[in-house]
């Protein structure tokens, strides 16, 4: 019940994120007050809708929630300050990216809130897509292997073992490197590659689960009864084995859905920018990017100084999002399993 | 393989029953003679409920019966009537959440096994549902368990339905049997060892006699072995010698006397062994004292404190809690005489249940034996401590018909030989007819009829008993029409009011819905709980 509630919240966020006004990019808001740039603690700038921001003379005030680049508005003068200059002071709520890949014309500060919202779409979508694909593949393979047994089972299980031995992160990194080196940089292809990499790594878990369940189910009397009535093997698998084997899959799926954003975060943290930011936000990447600044900040400010200046909001909020999301999916999976099991229905 | 252990293909002359058809005489027990015997177990108004999420399952509602020495009482009923629950309630083996023996008395050896029930828990009904919250005082419940634990196994022994799952699969059979023996009769074992005389001319002479008897016949071997045991003042040594002789005969060994003498010399106790045995005996007697005090928790605490001064607290604790057969902290050589004594006693126990090759069986593991053999082993474990009561929960249901016949035969024989009172729980009326003296028929948690076995079958009074007897197919009555009882067993969360059988009874009257019929005496020894009869009520 609780899980359902939280999940509905996320679903709502998802839908909101889909409809968040923007073209294909993240809306950006700049705020500069009283001619100071970058904003300081004395004049922080919030990007809440009801805050009035003033802009340096000669610049054009951007419309709320709109993204502006020199291309879209020739009168727009983006700030030129870079991260290294703005050490210690940057607007609360903004998103910080490492400077290495910035180009001077790129905007520097982004809105965490909007990144999170947009990120919902991407994160949830990616997680669900990857897990579902992996689960379906694993289900298919596992059900067939478990039902037929014999040498089919042996062969498939050995193949599964091979796939199980591949570490997830390494494969994704390898795929990205290969992809980048062969020039496929666009978002969709990257996503596809990462998706394929994940599915390759994830499906064996499902296959194993489904196989062990189908080994049990195929010995049940009702399967024998169905065979006695002339059911073909395919029908038995589709109508009896799979539906009765699918309960543990739900559990595993719920666990995995929460894990994927963390995995992506881990990969981004290592340094492989998965998604051409800042256009494609994703919770894990956002958190990782925020965490990346920790080291240089500590180096340059020392511990005391760093406490005020690390973008904690950038690390904590995406993390909280991942946490609540996987928690809610877990609860939902439990509830779903109980609801679907007729024996527990009251 | 199991075939090697169980099938007596080797010369088996120890004690298998002869293949010639044997008549199985049922000892004539008339009602009057049974009444005259002393009562061993007196169960009064046992009420057991299970407090579940769906409501309160009223499993037992006022079950009362008396079990007399040496008789076999059969408790019959169908699934869900509460017969197993009765057995577990008496020895407090009901899983305490969610079950609870709400009230009742079970008098055994003069004390109430179910003492203190009222103080252990409080019941709080939950408004608006059928549920009841039970607030237990777990300290008191544990104390009660400790009290009853002293009686289980030794005063009341039990055997269960699935023999293949009743034993620990990782320990050999002799280990499990020895555990029971050392726990309950350890002092006997130690005393026997201490006063054995394994040396001396008498023993040597007996050993030579044994060797000579090998060539004569099996009976001679048995006699010679017994004589040897007497000479050594240790009967289990006689058993050991018997099997050595048998082995010698099979493999043709010639130095039997030498071997026997060597085995006897092992019984000579060294100083360390003697000290060990003395300590063990002391521990065992302390244990026994602690166990014998099951009436009052306070006295137990006192005793523990007293004895703790004499032996280290740690040793006492490990001894009371650890497996007695393991003897932690003691060298194997030191504990060997005791362990071997326990082993041969276990073999003796297996002999009493007519297992043809007890040494092999004792050394084997539970998974090597078939269901029938395991059930015999269980029976031997149960009877090894001479309990006053044996409670058997469907002992033959899981066995094949021919094996069932063997086990029932065995139980009949043991009954006449040893004289333990047996509470036999089963759903098979035919088994009851073979083995029981008296029968109690249960339905939905209540005893509806109690009678001597002949009376019950020739003149069943309660409509449920009549219905049961009509629905059983009989091999000797092929044209008998099987009448089924309409309806089904009631849900014990919402039991029918009044007499619980009234929805299915062909003779139901208006009063049956309102009041529960009391147990009345219709004929001497034959009690019924039904409004169709109005005899004098049963006097407790």
């Amino acid at each position, binding site marked *: 019940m609780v899980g359902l509630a939280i999940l509905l919240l996320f679903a709502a966020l998802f839908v909101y994120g889909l409809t968040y006004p923007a073209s294909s990019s993240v809306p950006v808001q700049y705020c500069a007050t009283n001619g100071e740039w970058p904003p300081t603690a004395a004049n922080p700038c919030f990007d809440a809708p009801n805050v009035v921001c003033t802009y340096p003379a000669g610049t054009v005030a951007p419309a709320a929630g709109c993204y502006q680049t020199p291309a879209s508005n020739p009168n727009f003068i983006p700030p030129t300050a870079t991260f290294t200059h703005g050490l210690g002071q940057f607007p609360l709520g903004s998103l910080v990216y490492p400077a290495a890949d910035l180009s001077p014309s790129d905007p520097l500060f982004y809105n965490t809130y909007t990144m999170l919202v947009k990120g919902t779409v991407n994160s949830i979508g990616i997680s669900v897509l990857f897990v579902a694909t992996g689960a379906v593949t694993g289900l298919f393979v596992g059900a067939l292997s478990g039902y037929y047994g014999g040498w089919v089972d042996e062969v498939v299980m050995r193949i599964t073992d091979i796939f199980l031995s591949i570490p997830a992160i390494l494969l994704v990194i390898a795929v990205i490197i290969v992809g980048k080196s062969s020039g496929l940089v666009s978002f969709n292809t990257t996503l596809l590659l990462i998706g394929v990499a994940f599915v390759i790594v994830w499906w064996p878990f499902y296959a194993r689960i489904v196989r062990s369940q189908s080994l049990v189910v195929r010995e049940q009397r009702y399967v024998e009864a169905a065979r*006695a*009535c002339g059911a073909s093997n395919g029908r038995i698998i589709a109508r009896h084995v799979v539906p009765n084997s699918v309960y543990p899959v739900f559990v595993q799926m719920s666990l995995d859905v929460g894990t994927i954003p963390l995995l992506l975060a881990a990969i981004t943290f290592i340094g492989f920018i998965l998604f051409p930011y800042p256009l494609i936000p994703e919770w894990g990447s956002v958190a990782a990017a925020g965490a990346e600044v920790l080291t240089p900040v500590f180096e340059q400010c020392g511990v005391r100084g760093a406490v005020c200046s690390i973008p904690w909001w950038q690390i904590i909020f995406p993390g909280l999002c991942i946490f609540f999301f996987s928690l809610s999916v877990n609860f939902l999976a439990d509830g779903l399993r109980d609801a679907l099991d007729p024996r527990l229905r009251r | 393989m199991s075939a090697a252990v169980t099938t007596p293909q080797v010369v088996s002359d120890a004690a298998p029953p002869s293949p010639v058809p044997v008549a199985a005489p049922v000892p004539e027990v008339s009602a009057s003679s049974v009444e005259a015997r002393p009562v061993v177990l007196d169960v009064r108004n046992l009420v057991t409920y299970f407090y579940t999420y769906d409501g309160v399952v009223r499993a037992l509602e006022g079950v009362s019966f008396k079990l007399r020495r040496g008789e076999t009482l059969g408790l019959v009923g169908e699934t869900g009537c509460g017969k197993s629950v009765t057995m577990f309630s008496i020895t407090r083996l009901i899983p305490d959440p969610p079950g609870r023996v709400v009230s009742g008395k079970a008098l055994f050896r003069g004390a109430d096994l179910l003492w203190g029930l009222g103080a252990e828990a409080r019941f709080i009904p939950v408004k608006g549902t059928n549920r009841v919250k039970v607030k237990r005082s777990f300290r008191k419940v544990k104390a009660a368990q400790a009290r009853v634990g002293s009686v289980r196994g030794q005063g009341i022994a039990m055997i269960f339905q699935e023999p293949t799952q009743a034993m620990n699969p990782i320990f050999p059979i002799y280990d499990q049997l020895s555990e029971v023996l050392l726990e309950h009769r350890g002092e006997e074992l130690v005393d026997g060892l201490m006063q054995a005389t394994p040396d001396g001319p008498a023993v040597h002479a007996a050993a030579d006699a044994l060797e000579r008897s090998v060539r004569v016949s099996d009976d001679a071997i048995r006699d010679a072995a017994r004589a040897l045991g007497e000479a050594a003042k240790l009967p289990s040594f006689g058993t050991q010698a018997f099997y050595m002789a048998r082995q010698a005969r099979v493999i043709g060994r010639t130095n039997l006397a030498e071997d026997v003498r060597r085995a006897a010399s092992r019984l000579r106790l060294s100083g360390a062994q003697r000290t060990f045995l003395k300590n063990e005996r002391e521990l065992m007697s302390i244990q026994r004292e602690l166990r014998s005090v099951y009436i009052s928790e306070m006295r137990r605490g006192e005793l523990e404190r007293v004895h703790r001064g004499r032996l280290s607290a740690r040793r006492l604790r490990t001894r009371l809690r650890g497996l007695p057969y393991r003897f932690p902290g003691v060298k194997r050589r030191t504990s060997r005489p005791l362990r071997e004594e326990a082993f041969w006693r276990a073999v003796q126990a297996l002999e009493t249940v007519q297992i043809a090759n007890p040494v092999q069986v004792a050394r084997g593991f539970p998974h090597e034996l078939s269901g029938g053999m395991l059930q015999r082993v269980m029976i031997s474990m149960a009877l090894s401590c001479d309990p006053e009561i044996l409670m058997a929960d469907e002992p033959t249901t899981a066995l094949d018909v*021919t094996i069932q*016949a063997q086990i029932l035969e065995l139980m009949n024989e043991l009954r006449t030989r040893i004289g333990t009172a047996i509470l036999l729980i089963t759903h098979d009326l035919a088994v009851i007819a073979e083995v029981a003296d008296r029968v109690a028929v249960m339905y939905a948690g209540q005893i509806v009829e109690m009678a001597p076995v002949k009376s019950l079958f020739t003149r069943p009074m309660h409509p449920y008993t009549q219905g049961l007897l009509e629905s059983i197919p009989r091999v000797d009555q092929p044209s008998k029409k099987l009448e089924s009882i309409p309806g089904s067993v009631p849900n014990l969360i919402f039991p029918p009011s009044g007499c619980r059988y009234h929805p299915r009874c062909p003779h139901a009257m208006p009063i049956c819905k309102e009041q529960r019929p009391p147990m009345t005496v219709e004929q001497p020894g034959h009690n019924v709980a039904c409004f169709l009869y109005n005899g004098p009520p049963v006097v407790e």
Partner: protein
Amino acid sequence: MLATPGSALSGGDGTAGNEHVLFSVRNLRKFFPIRGGLFSSHIGDVRAVDGVSFTIHEGETVGLVGESGCGKTTVGRMLLRLIEPTSGHAFYRPPPDVVDRIEQDYQAIGMTPLPEDGGAGKLSPEATKALHDLDGLADKYSLFRKKRKEIKALRARLQIVFQDPFSSLEPRLMVRDVIAEPLDIQHVGTRAERMRRVDELLESVGLSPEHAWRFPHEFSGGQRQRIGIARALALRPEFIVLDEPTSALDVSVQAQVLNILRRLQQEQRLAYLFISHHLSVIRAVSDRVVVMYLGRIVERAETDELFSRPLHPYTQALLSAIPIPDPLLHRERIILTGDVPSPADPPSGCHFHTRCPAVMPICSKVSPPMAEVRPGHWVSCHLFPPASAPGAGGAVESPAPVESLGSMDAGPLTTTAEASSSP
């Protein structure tokens, strides 16, 4: 007594004759391979069914009795082809003249003495001809040689009711789906027609149509077994294998279920193979009884004949071991020694010789052939040898000769050692 072909005594089962034969089972065998050793090599066989022959006629109940491990469940499943046999035939609905021919062929083959009995082990020309004829008949009538499509159509007519009422119904389906499933598999009728039939079936087993909307776990054991029977009846079968249908039920419920089964048999002219180890139930239900021990048939007769005059020592022991609910009856019981041997390592010769009270030296060497001692009463015991000189007739089934000659007797499979298995 010689069973002459064409007489009413042939057909393998005496007085029932060879009209309306539903199944004529011959020399059915099922060996499950034991794999062991380093490379899971084939080190032996569990001889679950070792040469079983009997006949089932339309509308009759054949009781198959034996203790656990004797192979009776396997036989039942083989008749439905849920398990593939290692060798043997089951002729389905052979016409009377074919029954006679089968009989003749087996007699011709059966006369070949076994190698271990001193014979040469080679087939005589008549035997070879008979074998070929048998092969041809098997192609036409044997259940085990039918193709997939034919089998699917046949499955509608051969059904099974299982022992355990708790696992035989799929727990996540409603009762109506459970019963309608056979109809669905065989594509019978429209959805509405199927639901009507479900209601019909529920009523015929004594449940009400409103029960169709509940789940199996809401019913008691007896009711679930009745649902299982309703499911078996859905396709209007002519033959139902009842695999210990009442062993898990209480006595009063058992009576209900048996009464329902009897009524249905009379209404719909069903044939039952009633497998059980409760002899009292078998006596109440069966027309003819087959007693099995460790994979072989030891005795076969009509019910009354078997129970009043049991000939085989095992049958006698079995009958005397049944506890009778009558305390006034003092019986002489034959208590067998020892336990049932394992089917993986059965005793040589007659499997029962290790426990038999009447064992003779020959029993451990040669397995006894099946002989007709009285009309319709067949026993496999050396106490009752075939009446004429050995090898000349009477004995219809010698367990081995066709076996040792290899694969011509087999159905879809080849030699026994390579029997595939699905335990």
